[in-house]
C-alpha cells in the first residue's frame, strides 16, 4: 500500500510494546486492510520475543585472576595525561599574561603609564587604582598592566572554554553522524 511508510515507525513501536492492544485507531484500521504490514508486525514481534529471551553466553574462563595479574604489573598511579581543556585554556591565558608582562620587563619595553581610554575603569574606581599604583612606583605600573592583561586573557580564555563546552554535544553529534555515514558507505561498498 502506498501509505504503508507512514505507519513504519508506529508498527515498530507496537512490536516493542508489552501489550498487544492497539490504541491507535488509524493504525488498527490500516493493519486490518494491509497484509504486508500485518506480516511486518508479526516478524518484528517474533524478533522482539526472541531477543528478550536472548541469554548471556557463559565465559570460557574466569577473568578475575588474569585481570588482577595484569593490574599488578601496572603502577597504581594513572599515567600522564592532558588536563581537560576547561582547565588548560584559562591556565594558558594566565600564563600568557604573566609571560607578556615579564617579557616586557626583560626586553625593557616601555609600558604605558595608564590604560587606553577604551579600557579605563569607571571614574569612581580611578582614585583607588591610583592609590594602589602610587606607592609601588614602576612596579605598580607593571602590576596595573598585569591585572589588565590578566583580566583580559583570563576572561577570553574562560569565554573560549564556555563556548567550546556549549558546542561539545553538537561536535559529538556531528562526529558520530559522520562516522555513521562512513560506516554505512563502507557497508554498501562491501555488499
Amino acid at each position: 500500500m502506498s501509505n504503508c511508510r507512514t505507519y513504519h515507525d508506529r508498527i515498530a513501536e507496537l512490536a516493542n510494546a508489552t501489550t498487544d492492544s492497539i490504541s491507535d485507531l488509524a493504525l488498527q484500521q490500516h493493519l486490518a486492510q494491509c497484509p504486508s504490514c500485518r506480516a511486518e508486525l508479526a516478524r518484528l514481534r517474533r524478533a522482539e520475543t526472541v531477543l528478550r529471551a536472548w541469554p548471556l553466553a557463559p565465559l570460557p574462563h574466569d577473568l578475575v585472576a588474569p585481570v588482577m595479574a595484569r593490574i599488578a604489573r601496572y603502577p597504581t598511579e594513572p599515567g600522564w595525561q592532558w588536563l581537560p581543556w576547561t582547565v588548560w585554556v584559562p591556565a594558558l591565558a594566565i600564563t600568557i599574561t604573566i609571560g607578556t608582562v615579564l617579557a616586557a620587563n626583560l626586553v625593557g619595553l616601555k609600558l604605558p603609564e595608564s590604560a587606553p581610554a577604551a579600557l579605563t575603569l569607571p571614574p569612581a574606581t580611578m582614585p583607588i587604582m591610583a592609590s594602589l599604583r602610587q606607592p609601588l612606583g614602576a612596579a605598580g605600573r607593571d602590576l596595573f598592566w598585569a591585572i589588565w592583561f590578566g583580566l583580559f586573557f583570563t576572561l577570553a580564555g574562560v569565554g573560549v572554554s564556555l563556548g567550546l563546552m556549549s558546542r561539545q554535544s553538537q561536535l559529538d553529534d556531528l562526529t558520530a553522524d559522520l562516522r555513521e555515514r562512513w560506516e554505512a558507505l563502507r557497508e554498501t561498498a562491501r555488499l
Partner: protein
Amino acid sequence: MQRGTVVQDPLDVWVARARDGDHDAFGEIVRHTQTQVYNLAYQILRNPQEAEDLAQVAYVRAWRALPNFRGDSRFSTWLYRIVTNTCLNRRRQLGRSVELGDDHLALAADGQLQPESSVIERQTRRELWSAVGELPERYRTVLTLFYQAQLSYDDIAASLTLPLGTVKAQLSRARRALARLLERDEPHE
C-alpha cells in the same frame, strides 16, 4: 524491568573502594560484570580468544582510568564505553579477518539450557545467534547493550558516545534486519 529510571548501581560501593586503590574491590567488580563485558566484546569481535583478551585489556584500562571516573554516569555505562572503544580499535586494526565462521557462543549458550528445554527452544536460540552474527557490528553492539546488558537508550548513547536519535534509529534498523534474517531462517513447510 523499567528502563530509563535512575537506579542505584549495586557496584557503587566497590567502585568507591576501587577508586581508592582497593584491588579486592576491583576484583569484585570484574567478577560481577565479566559475563556481560565478555559478551559485548564477543559481539564486536566475533572471536572468543580476542574477546577474552580484549575484555582483560578493557578492565586494565578501566582500573587505570578509575581515578578519573567522576560518577557522571553509571559505572556500568562508563565501563561498557571503555570495552566498546577498546574492541572497536582492535577490530579496526584486524579488520574482518578476526571473525570466526563458527558461532562458538551459540554452542556454549546451548550448554546452559536445561536438559528439558525443547528442541524448538534450542533451534530458536541457534537461529538467533546465527542471525545476530550476520548483522553489521554496530547493530550487534546496540542489540547487545539493550537486550543483554539491559541498558536504557540514554545509557547506550552515553556508552557509544552517539546521539540518542542515532541509537534509537540503529536499534530500530537492527530489529528489522534481524526480523528479516529470522524469517529467512525459519523452516518452510
